Protein backbone atom coordinates (compact mmCIF):
# COMPACT_ATOMS: atom_id res chain seq x y z
CA UNK A 1 0.00 0.00 0.00
CA UNK A 2 2.82 2.38 0.96
CA UNK A 3 4.58 1.65 -2.33
CA UNK A 4 1.37 2.45 -4.18
CA UNK A 5 1.02 5.79 -2.43
CA UNK A 6 4.68 6.68 -3.14
CA UNK A 7 4.18 5.67 -6.77
CA UNK A 8 1.08 7.87 -7.02
CA UNK A 9 2.97 10.86 -5.55
CA UNK A 10 5.87 10.32 -7.93
CA UNK A 11 3.54 10.06 -10.91
CA UNK A 12 1.73 13.22 -9.85
CA UNK A 13 5.02 15.06 -9.45
CA UNK A 14 6.24 13.90 -12.87
CA UNK A 15 2.96 14.95 -14.46
CA UNK A 16 3.16 18.39 -12.83
CA UNK A 17 6.76 18.82 -13.97
CA UNK A 18 5.88 17.80 -17.52
CA UNK A 19 3.18 20.48 -17.49
CA UNK A 20 5.83 23.17 -16.79
CA UNK A 21 8.25 21.67 -19.32
CA UNK A 22 5.50 21.70 -21.95
CA UNK A 23 4.72 25.35 -21.23
CA UNK A 24 8.38 26.31 -21.61
CA UNK A 25 8.90 24.30 -24.77
CA UNK A 26 5.74 25.72 -26.40
CA UNK A 27 6.86 29.27 -25.58
CA UNK A 28 10.35 28.56 -26.91
CA UNK A 29 9.04 27.32 -30.25
CA UNK A 30 6.83 30.43 -30.57
CA UNK A 31 9.87 32.61 -29.78
CA UNK A 32 11.90 30.94 -32.55
CA UNK A 33 9.04 31.55 -34.98
CA UNK A 34 8.72 35.21 -33.91
CA UNK A 35 12.48 35.81 -34.14
CA UNK A 36 12.55 34.36 -37.64
CA UNK A 37 10.33 37.13 -39.01
CA UNK A 38 12.12 40.10 -37.41
CA UNK A 39 12.89 42.61 -40.17
CA UNK A 40 10.66 40.98 -42.80
CA UNK A 41 8.59 44.11 -43.27
CA UNK A 42 5.96 45.13 -44.15
CA UNK A 43 4.15 42.78 -41.78
CA UNK A 44 0.97 41.27 -43.10
CA UNK A 45 -1.70 39.27 -41.24
CA UNK A 46 0.46 36.08 -41.06
CA UNK A 47 3.46 37.85 -39.55
CA UNK A 48 1.25 39.83 -37.20
CA UNK A 49 -0.33 36.58 -36.00
CA UNK A 50 3.09 34.97 -35.37
CA UNK A 51 4.21 38.00 -33.35
CA UNK A 52 0.94 38.05 -31.44
CA UNK A 53 1.11 34.33 -30.66
CA UNK A 54 4.48 34.72 -28.96
CA UNK A 55 3.71 37.82 -26.93
CA UNK A 56 0.30 36.55 -25.84
CA UNK A 57 1.93 33.26 -24.77
CA UNK A 58 4.53 35.07 -22.66
CA UNK A 59 1.75 37.09 -21.03
CA UNK A 60 -0.36 33.98 -20.36
CA UNK A 61 2.73 32.16 -19.09
CA UNK A 62 3.44 34.73 -16.36
CA UNK A 63 -0.26 35.25 -15.60
CA UNK A 64 -0.78 31.52 -15.06
CA UNK A 65 2.18 31.31 -12.70
CA UNK A 66 1.14 34.46 -10.86
CA UNK A 67 -2.41 33.28 -10.28
CA UNK A 68 -1.64 29.68 -9.37
CA UNK A 69 0.49 29.37 -6.22
CA UNK A 70 1.06 25.63 -6.68
CA UNK A 71 2.17 26.07 -10.27
CA UNK A 72 4.43 28.90 -9.19
CA UNK A 73 6.08 26.68 -6.57
CA UNK A 74 6.51 23.85 -9.06
CA UNK A 75 7.97 26.27 -11.57
CA UNK A 76 10.50 27.58 -9.05
CA UNK A 77 11.48 24.04 -8.12
CA UNK A 78 11.91 23.16 -11.76
CA UNK A 79 13.97 26.29 -12.47
CA UNK A 80 16.33 25.56 -9.59
CA UNK A 81 17.49 22.47 -11.42
CA UNK A 82 17.95 24.34 -14.72
CA UNK A 83 20.57 26.66 -16.12
CA UNK A 84 19.11 30.17 -16.00
CA UNK A 85 20.88 31.45 -19.12
CA UNK A 86 19.54 28.53 -21.14
CA UNK A 87 16.02 29.03 -19.79
CA UNK A 88 16.01 32.78 -20.51
CA UNK A 89 17.42 32.52 -24.02
CA UNK A 90 14.85 29.82 -24.62
CA UNK A 91 11.71 31.73 -23.78
CA UNK A 92 12.59 35.43 -23.87
CA UNK A 93 13.08 37.31 -27.09
CA UNK A 94 16.19 39.53 -27.03
CA UNK A 95 15.76 43.23 -26.21
CA UNK A 96 17.25 44.28 -29.56
CA UNK A 97 14.82 42.00 -31.41
CA UNK A 98 11.92 43.35 -29.39
CA UNK A 99 12.94 46.93 -30.19
CA UNK A 100 13.24 46.01 -33.87
CA UNK A 101 9.78 44.42 -33.85
CA UNK A 102 8.36 47.60 -32.34
CA UNK A 103 10.02 49.68 -35.07
CA UNK A 104 8.76 47.32 -37.77
CA UNK A 105 5.28 47.46 -36.26
CA UNK A 106 5.14 51.24 -36.70
CA UNK A 107 4.07 52.52 -40.11
CA UNK A 108 2.89 56.04 -40.99
CA UNK A 109 3.17 57.01 -37.29
CA UNK A 110 0.70 54.25 -36.30
CA UNK A 111 1.52 51.19 -34.19
CA UNK A 112 0.00 48.28 -36.08
CA UNK A 113 0.93 45.11 -34.19
CA UNK A 114 -0.97 43.46 -31.36
CA UNK A 115 -1.00 45.52 -28.15
CA UNK A 116 0.66 42.60 -26.32
CA UNK A 117 3.97 43.58 -27.99
CA UNK A 118 3.98 46.81 -25.99
CA UNK A 119 3.16 44.93 -22.79
CA UNK A 120 6.23 42.69 -23.01
CA UNK A 121 8.18 44.66 -20.39
CA UNK A 122 5.26 44.48 -17.97
CA UNK A 123 5.10 40.70 -18.42
CA UNK A 124 8.80 40.51 -17.63
CA UNK A 125 8.26 42.59 -14.50
CA UNK A 126 5.57 40.17 -13.32
CA UNK A 127 8.07 37.40 -13.91
CA UNK A 128 10.31 39.00 -11.23
CA UNK A 129 7.47 38.60 -8.72
CA UNK A 130 7.11 34.91 -9.53
CA UNK A 131 10.70 33.97 -8.87
CA UNK A 132 11.99 33.07 -5.44
CA UNK A 133 14.62 35.40 -3.93
CA UNK A 134 17.49 33.09 -4.84
CA UNK A 135 16.31 32.65 -8.41
CA UNK A 136 15.61 36.36 -8.78
CA UNK A 137 19.23 37.17 -7.94
CA UNK A 138 20.48 34.67 -10.52
CA UNK A 139 17.93 35.99 -13.01
CA UNK A 140 19.08 39.58 -12.55
CA UNK A 141 22.75 38.60 -12.94
CA UNK A 142 22.18 36.62 -16.14
CA UNK A 143 22.69 38.67 -19.28
CA UNK A 144 20.35 36.47 -21.36
CA UNK A 145 17.49 37.36 -19.01
CA UNK A 146 17.78 41.14 -19.43
Amino acid at each position, binding site marked *: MKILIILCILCGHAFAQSDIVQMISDTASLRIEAESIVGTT*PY*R*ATEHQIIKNYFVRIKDFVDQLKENARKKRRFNNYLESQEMSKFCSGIFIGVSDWEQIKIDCTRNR*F*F*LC*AEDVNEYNESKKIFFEILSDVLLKIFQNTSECQ
Partner: protein
Amino acid sequence: MKKLLIMIFSLWCTLIWAQSNQEIKIDLKQVVNKVSTENYSVYQNSLRVYQAKEGITVARMNLLPRLNLWKLASAAAEIFAGGPAGAAGGAFSIVEDIAPFLVPANWFRVSQSKLFYQADLEGYKALWANEVLTAKALYHHILLDSSLKDHILKSRKDLDEIYHIVRVRETFGGLTQNISQEIKIRLLALDEDLRALEVLISEEESILAFLMGYPSGTKLKVTLIEMPDYDSLEHLVYEDFDFRALDVSPEVKQFQFFINAADYAKKEIYYSFLGASSLSRGLNGGVFDNLPVQAGLGFGAGASIRIVKTQKEILKAQKKAVEETVRRQLKQLINNYNLDVDNYKNLNERVSLTKNRLKQIYQRIQFGENIDSLQLIESSRNLIDAETALFSVMFRFLNSEDKLSRLIFFGDYAKAKEALKLIQKEQR
Protein backbone atom coordinates in the same frame (compact mmCIF):
# COMPACT_ATOMS: atom_id res chain seq x y z
CA MET B 1 -25.76 101.78 5.39
CA LYS B 2 -28.52 101.26 2.84
CA LYS B 3 -26.24 102.48 0.07
CA LEU B 4 -23.50 100.12 1.20
CA LEU B 5 -25.90 97.18 1.17
CA ILE B 6 -27.07 98.05 -2.34
CA MET B 7 -23.46 98.32 -3.48
CA ILE B 8 -22.56 94.91 -2.00
CA PHE B 9 -25.65 93.33 -3.57
CA SER B 10 -24.95 94.81 -7.00
CA LEU B 11 -21.29 93.69 -6.75
CA TRP B 12 -22.44 90.16 -5.85
CA CYS B 13 -24.89 90.15 -8.79
CA THR B 14 -22.13 91.30 -11.16
CA LEU B 15 -19.84 88.55 -9.89
CA ILE B 16 -22.52 85.89 -10.38
CA TRP B 17 -23.28 87.19 -13.86
CA ALA B 18 -19.59 87.28 -14.76
CA GLN B 19 -19.16 83.72 -13.51
CA SER B 20 -22.14 82.41 -15.45
CA ASN B 21 -20.91 84.05 -18.64
CA GLN B 22 -17.31 83.06 -18.17
CA GLU B 23 -15.71 81.33 -21.11
CA ILE B 24 -13.92 78.08 -20.41
CA LYS B 25 -10.78 77.67 -22.44
CA ILE B 26 -10.30 74.05 -23.47
CA ASP B 27 -7.78 72.02 -25.40
CA LEU B 28 -7.96 68.54 -26.96
CA LYS B 29 -6.34 66.87 -23.95
CA GLN B 30 -9.05 68.29 -21.69
CA VAL B 31 -11.71 67.12 -24.13
CA VAL B 32 -10.44 63.52 -23.85
CA ASN B 33 -10.16 63.70 -20.07
CA LYS B 34 -13.55 65.32 -19.51
CA VAL B 35 -15.35 62.96 -21.88
CA SER B 36 -13.69 60.05 -20.08
CA THR B 37 -14.88 61.11 -16.66
CA GLU B 38 -17.88 63.42 -17.05
CA ASN B 39 -19.72 62.30 -20.18
CA TYR B 40 -23.20 61.05 -19.22
CA SER B 41 -23.23 57.99 -21.50
CA VAL B 42 -19.68 57.00 -20.58
CA TYR B 43 -20.49 57.35 -16.89
CA GLN B 44 -23.68 55.26 -17.23
CA ASN B 45 -21.77 52.59 -19.09
CA SER B 46 -18.99 52.53 -16.52
CA LEU B 47 -21.66 51.90 -13.88
CA ARG B 48 -22.95 49.02 -16.00
CA VAL B 49 -19.44 47.56 -16.06
CA TYR B 50 -19.36 47.95 -12.29
CA GLN B 51 -22.69 46.11 -12.05
CA ALA B 52 -21.32 43.30 -14.22
CA LYS B 53 -18.25 43.08 -12.01
CA GLU B 54 -20.40 42.86 -8.94
CA GLY B 55 -22.49 40.28 -10.81
CA ILE B 56 -19.50 37.92 -10.66
CA THR B 57 -19.40 38.29 -6.88
CA VAL B 58 -23.14 37.68 -6.67
CA ALA B 59 -22.85 34.51 -8.77
CA ARG B 60 -19.87 33.30 -6.77
CA MET B 61 -21.42 34.06 -3.40
CA ASN B 62 -24.62 32.32 -4.45
CA LEU B 63 -22.67 29.08 -4.53
CA LEU B 64 -22.63 29.28 -0.73
CA PRO B 65 -25.62 28.18 1.36
CA ARG B 66 -28.45 30.68 1.69
CA LEU B 67 -31.23 30.96 4.21
CA ASN B 68 -34.82 30.49 2.99
CA LEU B 69 -37.04 30.06 6.06
CA TRP B 70 -40.15 28.94 4.15
CA LYS B 71 -38.30 26.22 2.28
CA LEU B 72 -36.67 25.08 5.53
CA ALA B 73 -40.05 24.97 7.21
CA SER B 74 -41.58 22.95 4.37
CA ALA B 75 -38.63 20.52 4.41
CA ALA B 76 -38.92 20.16 8.18
CA ALA B 77 -42.64 19.50 7.82
CA GLU B 78 -41.90 16.83 5.25
CA ILE B 79 -39.30 15.20 7.50
CA PHE B 80 -41.54 15.18 10.59
CA ALA B 81 -44.67 14.23 8.76
CA GLY B 82 -42.74 11.32 7.24
CA GLY B 83 -43.94 12.12 3.74
CA PRO B 84 -43.34 9.93 0.72
CA ALA B 85 -39.54 9.98 1.02
CA GLY B 86 -39.27 10.91 4.68
CA ALA B 87 -36.08 12.59 5.98
CA ALA B 88 -34.09 12.10 2.80
CA GLY B 89 -36.84 13.64 0.66
CA GLY B 90 -36.99 16.67 2.95
CA ALA B 91 -33.23 17.18 2.84
CA PHE B 92 -32.99 16.82 -0.95
CA SER B 93 -35.78 19.32 -1.48
CA ILE B 94 -33.67 22.08 0.02
CA VAL B 95 -30.32 21.08 -1.48
CA GLU B 96 -30.46 24.02 -3.93
CA ASP B 97 -30.61 26.35 -0.93
CA ILE B 98 -28.26 24.74 1.56
CA ALA B 99 -25.72 23.48 -0.99
CA PRO B 100 -26.06 25.46 -4.22
CA PHE B 101 -22.49 24.51 -5.08
CA LEU B 102 -23.80 21.00 -5.76
CA VAL B 103 -25.73 22.38 -8.72
CA PRO B 104 -23.29 22.53 -11.71
CA ALA B 105 -25.49 25.10 -13.49
CA ASN B 106 -24.57 27.60 -10.76
CA TRP B 107 -20.88 27.11 -11.50
CA PHE B 108 -21.55 27.66 -15.20
CA ARG B 109 -23.38 30.87 -14.35
CA VAL B 110 -20.26 32.08 -12.46
CA SER B 111 -18.13 31.40 -15.55
CA GLN B 112 -20.73 33.08 -17.75
CA SER B 113 -20.89 36.16 -15.54
CA LYS B 114 -17.10 36.50 -15.83
CA LEU B 115 -17.43 36.43 -19.62
CA PHE B 116 -20.30 38.91 -19.56
CA TYR B 117 -18.19 41.22 -17.44
CA GLN B 118 -15.43 41.03 -20.07
CA ALA B 119 -18.05 41.69 -22.78
CA ASP B 120 -19.31 44.69 -20.81
CA LEU B 121 -15.78 46.01 -20.54
CA GLU B 122 -15.40 45.80 -24.31
CA GLY B 123 -18.77 47.50 -24.74
CA TYR B 124 -17.61 50.27 -22.46
CA LYS B 125 -14.40 50.65 -24.47
CA ALA B 126 -16.36 50.96 -27.72
CA LEU B 127 -18.79 53.51 -26.31
CA TRP B 128 -16.02 55.55 -24.66
CA ALA B 129 -14.03 55.61 -27.90
CA ASN B 130 -17.07 56.68 -29.92
CA GLU B 131 -17.86 59.52 -27.52
CA VAL B 132 -14.22 60.68 -27.56
CA LEU B 133 -14.23 60.47 -31.37
CA THR B 134 -17.42 62.56 -31.61
CA ALA B 135 -16.09 65.15 -29.16
CA LYS B 136 -12.76 65.44 -30.97
CA ALA B 137 -14.50 65.68 -34.35
CA LEU B 138 -16.66 68.51 -32.96
CA TYR B 139 -13.55 70.26 -31.68
CA HIS B 140 -12.02 70.01 -35.16
CA HIS B 141 -15.25 71.29 -36.73
CA ILE B 142 -15.33 74.30 -34.40
CA LEU B 143 -11.78 75.10 -35.45
CA LEU B 144 -12.65 74.64 -39.13
CA ASP B 145 -15.76 76.80 -38.93
CA SER B 146 -13.90 79.48 -36.96
CA SER B 147 -11.18 79.51 -39.63
CA LEU B 148 -13.83 79.81 -42.33
CA LYS B 149 -15.47 82.63 -40.42
CA ASP B 150 -12.17 84.52 -40.14
CA HIS B 151 -11.55 83.93 -43.81
CA ILE B 152 -14.99 85.20 -44.83
CA LEU B 153 -14.52 88.24 -42.60
CA LYS B 154 -11.28 88.99 -44.39
CA SER B 155 -12.89 88.51 -47.80
CA ARG B 156 -15.75 90.74 -46.76
CA LYS B 157 -13.35 93.47 -45.67
CA ASP B 158 -11.52 93.32 -49.03
CA LEU B 159 -14.77 93.38 -50.95
CA ASP B 160 -16.04 96.28 -48.86
CA GLU B 161 -13.00 98.35 -49.78
CA ILE B 162 -13.59 97.59 -53.45
CA TYR B 163 -17.25 98.49 -53.01
CA HIS B 164 -16.32 101.97 -51.78
CA ILE B 165 -13.84 102.51 -54.63
CA VAL B 166 -16.43 101.38 -57.17
CA ARG B 167 -19.06 103.65 -55.61
CA VAL B 168 -16.74 106.67 -55.93
CA ARG B 169 -15.98 105.79 -59.58
CA GLU B 170 -19.67 105.33 -60.34
CA THR B 171 -20.49 108.70 -58.77
CA PHE B 172 -17.94 110.41 -60.96
CA GLY B 173 -19.15 108.49 -64.02
CA GLY B 174 -16.11 106.27 -64.53
CA LEU B 175 -18.05 103.02 -64.14
CA THR B 176 -21.53 101.75 -64.89
CA GLN B 177 -24.01 101.54 -61.98
CA ASN B 178 -24.46 97.76 -61.92
CA ILE B 179 -20.99 96.81 -60.52
CA SER B 180 -21.57 98.34 -57.07
CA GLN B 181 -24.96 96.65 -56.93
CA GLU B 182 -23.45 93.27 -57.73
CA ILE B 183 -20.76 93.80 -55.06
CA LYS B 184 -23.40 94.83 -52.55
CA ILE B 185 -25.36 91.62 -53.26
CA ARG B 186 -22.16 89.64 -52.74
CA LEU B 187 -21.50 91.50 -49.48
CA LEU B 188 -24.99 90.72 -48.23
CA ALA B 189 -24.53 87.05 -49.14
CA LEU B 190 -21.28 86.99 -47.15
CA ASP B 191 -23.07 88.53 -44.16
CA GLU B 192 -25.63 85.74 -44.34
CA ASP B 193 -22.82 83.15 -44.47
CA LEU B 194 -21.21 84.76 -41.44
CA ARG B 195 -24.42 84.70 -39.41
CA ALA B 196 -25.04 81.06 -40.37
CA LEU B 197 -21.50 80.15 -39.33
CA GLU B 198 -21.87 81.89 -35.97
CA VAL B 199 -25.02 79.88 -35.24
CA LEU B 200 -23.31 76.68 -36.37
CA ILE B 201 -20.26 77.31 -34.15
CA SER B 202 -22.48 78.08 -31.19
CA GLU B 203 -24.41 74.82 -31.75
CA GLU B 204 -21.20 72.83 -32.04
CA GLU B 205 -19.86 74.39 -28.85
CA SER B 206 -23.08 73.57 -27.06
CA ILE B 207 -22.94 69.89 -28.13
CA LEU B 208 -19.27 69.71 -27.17
CA ALA B 209 -20.06 71.18 -23.74
CA PHE B 210 -22.77 68.52 -23.31
CA LEU B 211 -20.38 65.72 -24.30
CA MET B 212 -17.86 67.07 -21.80
CA GLY B 213 -20.45 67.07 -19.04
CA TYR B 214 -20.62 70.85 -18.60
CA PRO B 215 -23.97 72.36 -17.56
CA SER B 216 -26.02 73.93 -20.36
CA GLY B 217 -25.13 77.52 -21.05
CA THR B 218 -21.42 76.98 -20.51
CA LYS B 219 -19.40 78.87 -23.08
CA LEU B 220 -16.38 77.09 -24.45
CA LYS B 221 -13.38 78.54 -26.18
CA VAL B 222 -11.31 76.05 -28.09
CA THR B 223 -7.57 76.59 -28.35
CA LEU B 224 -5.78 76.15 -31.64
CA ILE B 225 -4.04 72.89 -32.37
CA GLU B 226 -0.81 72.15 -34.12
CA MET B 227 -1.58 71.20 -37.70
CA PRO B 228 0.35 68.35 -39.29
CA ASP B 229 2.90 68.92 -42.02
CA TYR B 230 0.56 68.22 -44.92
CA ASP B 231 3.29 68.16 -47.52
CA SER B 232 4.93 65.20 -45.82
CA LEU B 233 1.78 63.05 -45.64
CA GLU B 234 2.00 59.75 -47.52
CA HIS B 235 -0.52 57.28 -48.86
CA LEU B 236 -1.74 54.62 -46.42
CA VAL B 237 -1.93 50.92 -47.31
CA TYR B 238 -5.05 49.04 -46.22
CA GLU B 239 -3.21 45.75 -45.61
CA ASP B 240 -0.98 47.45 -43.00
CA PHE B 241 -3.98 48.31 -40.84
CA ASP B 242 -6.23 45.32 -41.40
CA PHE B 243 -4.81 43.06 -38.67
CA ARG B 244 -4.67 45.66 -35.93
CA ALA B 245 -8.16 47.01 -36.63
CA LEU B 246 -9.68 43.56 -36.14
CA ASP B 247 -7.37 42.54 -33.32
CA VAL B 248 -8.23 45.47 -31.06
CA SER B 249 -11.84 46.00 -32.09
CA PRO B 250 -13.93 45.94 -28.87
CA GLU B 251 -17.04 45.17 -30.92
CA VAL B 252 -15.47 41.99 -32.30
CA LYS B 253 -14.10 40.98 -28.90
CA GLN B 254 -17.51 41.49 -27.30
CA PHE B 255 -19.06 38.94 -29.66
CA GLN B 256 -16.23 36.49 -28.98
CA PHE B 257 -17.09 36.62 -25.28
CA PHE B 258 -20.75 35.93 -26.06
CA ILE B 259 -19.72 32.97 -28.24
CA ASN B 260 -17.62 31.59 -25.39
CA ALA B 261 -20.54 32.07 -22.99
CA ALA B 262 -22.76 29.98 -25.31
CA ASP B 263 -20.66 26.91 -24.46
CA TYR B 264 -21.63 27.27 -20.81
CA ALA B 265 -25.30 27.60 -21.76
CA LYS B 266 -24.95 24.25 -23.53
CA LYS B 267 -23.33 22.67 -20.48
CA GLU B 268 -26.21 23.92 -18.35
CA ILE B 269 -28.55 21.72 -20.41
CA TYR B 270 -26.23 18.70 -20.22
CA TYR B 271 -26.12 18.91 -16.43
CA SER B 272 -29.74 19.97 -15.96
CA PHE B 273 -30.48 16.62 -14.26
CA LEU B 274 -28.59 18.07 -11.27
CA GLY B 275 -30.86 21.10 -11.11
CA ALA B 276 -31.24 24.40 -12.93
CA SER B 277 -29.74 27.69 -11.87
CA SER B 278 -32.00 30.48 -10.74
CA LEU B 279 -29.22 33.09 -10.88
CA SER B 280 -29.59 36.04 -13.22
CA ARG B 281 -27.17 36.32 -16.10
CA GLY B 282 -27.20 40.11 -15.80
CA LEU B 283 -27.82 42.71 -18.49
CA ASN B 284 -25.67 41.15 -21.19
CA GLY B 285 -27.01 37.71 -20.43
CA GLY B 286 -30.25 38.64 -22.16
CA VAL B 287 -28.85 36.96 -25.29
CA PHE B 288 -29.27 33.60 -23.55
CA ASP B 289 -32.31 34.26 -21.38
CA ASN B 290 -34.79 32.90 -23.91
CA LEU B 291 -32.98 29.60 -24.36
CA PRO B 292 -35.04 26.66 -23.08
CA VAL B 293 -33.18 25.13 -20.11
CA GLN B 294 -35.37 22.72 -18.10
CA ALA B 295 -34.87 21.91 -14.46
CA GLY B 296 -34.15 18.24 -15.05
CA LEU B 297 -33.09 16.17 -18.01
CA GLY B 298 -36.12 15.56 -20.18
CA PHE B 299 -36.93 14.52 -23.73
CA GLY B 300 -36.66 18.16 -24.80
CA ALA B 301 -32.94 18.32 -23.92
CA GLY B 302 -31.81 17.36 -27.45
CA ALA B 303 -33.84 20.13 -29.05
CA SER B 304 -32.64 22.58 -26.37
CA ILE B 305 -29.02 21.76 -27.22
CA ARG B 306 -29.73 22.31 -30.90
CA ILE B 307 -31.26 25.71 -30.08
CA VAL B 308 -28.15 26.72 -28.09
CA LYS B 309 -25.93 25.56 -30.97
CA THR B 310 -27.97 27.67 -33.38
CA GLN B 311 -27.71 30.62 -31.01
CA LYS B 312 -23.93 30.20 -31.10
CA GLU B 313 -24.05 30.16 -34.90
CA ILE B 314 -26.11 33.37 -34.86
CA LEU B 315 -23.48 34.99 -32.64
CA LYS B 316 -20.72 33.80 -34.96
CA ALA B 317 -22.54 35.29 -37.94
CA GLN B 318 -22.97 38.56 -36.04
CA LYS B 319 -19.26 38.58 -35.20
CA LYS B 320 -18.39 38.01 -38.85
CA ALA B 321 -20.70 40.89 -39.83
CA VAL B 322 -18.98 43.18 -37.32
CA GLU B 323 -15.55 42.15 -38.67
CA GLU B 324 -16.64 42.94 -42.21
CA THR B 325 -18.07 46.28 -41.09
CA VAL B 326 -14.74 47.18 -39.47
CA ARG B 327 -12.91 46.15 -42.66
CA ARG B 328 -15.30 48.16 -44.84
CA GLN B 329 -14.96 51.25 -42.64
CA LEU B 330 -11.18 50.93 -42.68
CA LYS B 331 -11.06 50.57 -46.46
CA GLN B 332 -13.34 53.55 -46.96
CA LEU B 333 -11.33 55.65 -44.52
CA ILE B 334 -8.01 54.83 -46.18
CA ASN B 335 -9.43 55.52 -49.66
CA ASN B 336 -10.68 58.93 -48.54
CA TYR B 337 -7.43 59.70 -46.76
CA ASN B 338 -5.40 58.87 -49.88
CA LEU B 339 -7.78 60.91 -52.00
CA ASP B 340 -7.22 63.92 -49.74
CA VAL B 341 -3.43 63.43 -49.91
CA ASP B 342 -3.69 63.68 -53.72
CA ASN B 343 -6.16 66.55 -53.65
CA TYR B 344 -4.25 68.64 -51.12
CA LYS B 345 -1.56 69.74 -53.62
CA ASN B 346 -4.21 70.55 -56.24
CA LEU B 347 -6.24 72.61 -53.82
CA ASN B 348 -3.17 74.53 -52.66
CA GLU B 349 -2.45 75.49 -56.26
CA ARG B 350 -6.11 76.33 -56.88
CA VAL B 351 -6.11 78.73 -53.91
CA SER B 352 -2.98 80.51 -55.05
CA LEU B 353 -4.29 80.87 -58.64
CA THR B 354 -7.71 82.18 -57.61
CA LYS B 355 -6.03 84.57 -55.15
CA ASN B 356 -3.87 85.99 -57.95
CA ARG B 357 -6.84 86.28 -60.26
CA LEU B 358 -8.88 88.27 -57.75
CA LYS B 359 -5.91 90.45 -56.88
CA GLN B 360 -5.51 91.35 -60.56
CA ILE B 361 -9.19 92.30 -60.81
CA TYR B 362 -8.97 94.46 -57.67
CA GLN B 363 -5.91 96.23 -59.09
CA ARG B 364 -7.70 96.86 -62.38
CA ILE B 365 -10.66 98.35 -60.52
CA GLN B 366 -8.34 100.57 -58.48
CA PHE B 367 -6.70 101.76 -61.74
CA GLY B 368 -10.16 102.72 -63.00
CA GLU B 369 -10.68 99.98 -65.59
CA ASN B 370 -14.19 99.01 -66.51
CA ILE B 371 -14.58 95.45 -65.13
CA ASP B 372 -17.28 92.95 -65.96
CA SER B 373 -19.22 92.64 -62.71
CA LEU B 374 -19.88 88.92 -63.26
CA GLN B 375 -16.14 88.33 -63.59
CA LEU B 376 -15.51 90.00 -60.22
CA ILE B 377 -18.25 88.07 -58.46
CA GLU B 378 -17.10 84.82 -60.02
CA SER B 379 -13.49 85.37 -58.95
CA SER B 380 -14.48 86.27 -55.42
CA ARG B 381 -16.67 83.18 -55.20
CA ASN B 382 -13.92 80.99 -56.67
CA LEU B 383 -11.44 82.11 -54.04
CA ILE B 384 -13.84 81.50 -51.18
CA ASP B 385 -14.73 78.07 -52.61
CA ALA B 386 -11.09 77.09 -53.08
CA GLU B 387 -10.09 78.22 -49.60
CA THR B 388 -13.10 76.52 -48.05
CA ALA B 389 -12.21 73.30 -49.86
CA LEU B 390 -8.59 73.58 -48.69
CA PHE B 391 -9.61 74.20 -45.07
CA SER B 392 -12.07 71.33 -45.27
CA VAL B 393 -9.40 68.95 -46.57
CA MET B 394 -6.96 70.08 -43.87
CA PHE B 395 -9.46 69.39 -41.12
CA ARG B 396 -10.68 66.23 -42.82
CA PHE B 397 -7.13 64.92 -42.48
CA LEU B 398 -7.34 65.51 -38.74
CA ASN B 399 -10.67 63.69 -38.55
CA SER B 400 -9.49 60.83 -40.77
CA GLU B 401 -6.38 60.37 -38.63
CA ASP B 402 -8.54 60.38 -35.55
CA LYS B 403 -11.00 57.87 -37.00
CA LEU B 404 -8.08 55.66 -37.93
CA SER B 405 -6.71 55.97 -34.40
CA ARG B 406 -10.15 55.01 -33.09
CA LEU B 407 -10.27 51.93 -35.32
CA ILE B 408 -6.83 50.72 -34.24
CA PHE B 409 -7.03 52.11 -30.67
CA PHE B 410 -3.96 54.25 -31.02
CA GLY B 411 -2.97 57.58 -29.42
CA ASP B 412 -5.73 58.98 -27.21
CA TYR B 413 -7.76 55.81 -27.74
CA ALA B 414 -5.09 53.68 -26.12
CA LYS B 415 -6.19 55.26 -22.82
CA ALA B 416 -9.48 53.33 -22.62
CA LYS B 417 -8.40 51.20 -19.67
CA GLU B 418 -7.02 54.17 -17.75
CA ALA B 419 -10.27 56.07 -18.35
CA LEU B 420 -12.27 53.26 -16.77
CA LYS B 421 -9.87 52.99 -13.84
CA LEU B 422 -10.26 56.74 -13.27
CA ILE B 423 -14.05 56.50 -13.09
CA GLN B 424 -13.96 53.38 -10.88
CA LYS B 425 -11.58 55.17 -8.52
CA GLU B 426 -14.07 58.03 -8.25
CA GLN B 427 -16.92 55.56 -7.63
CA ARG B 428 -15.08 54.16 -4.64
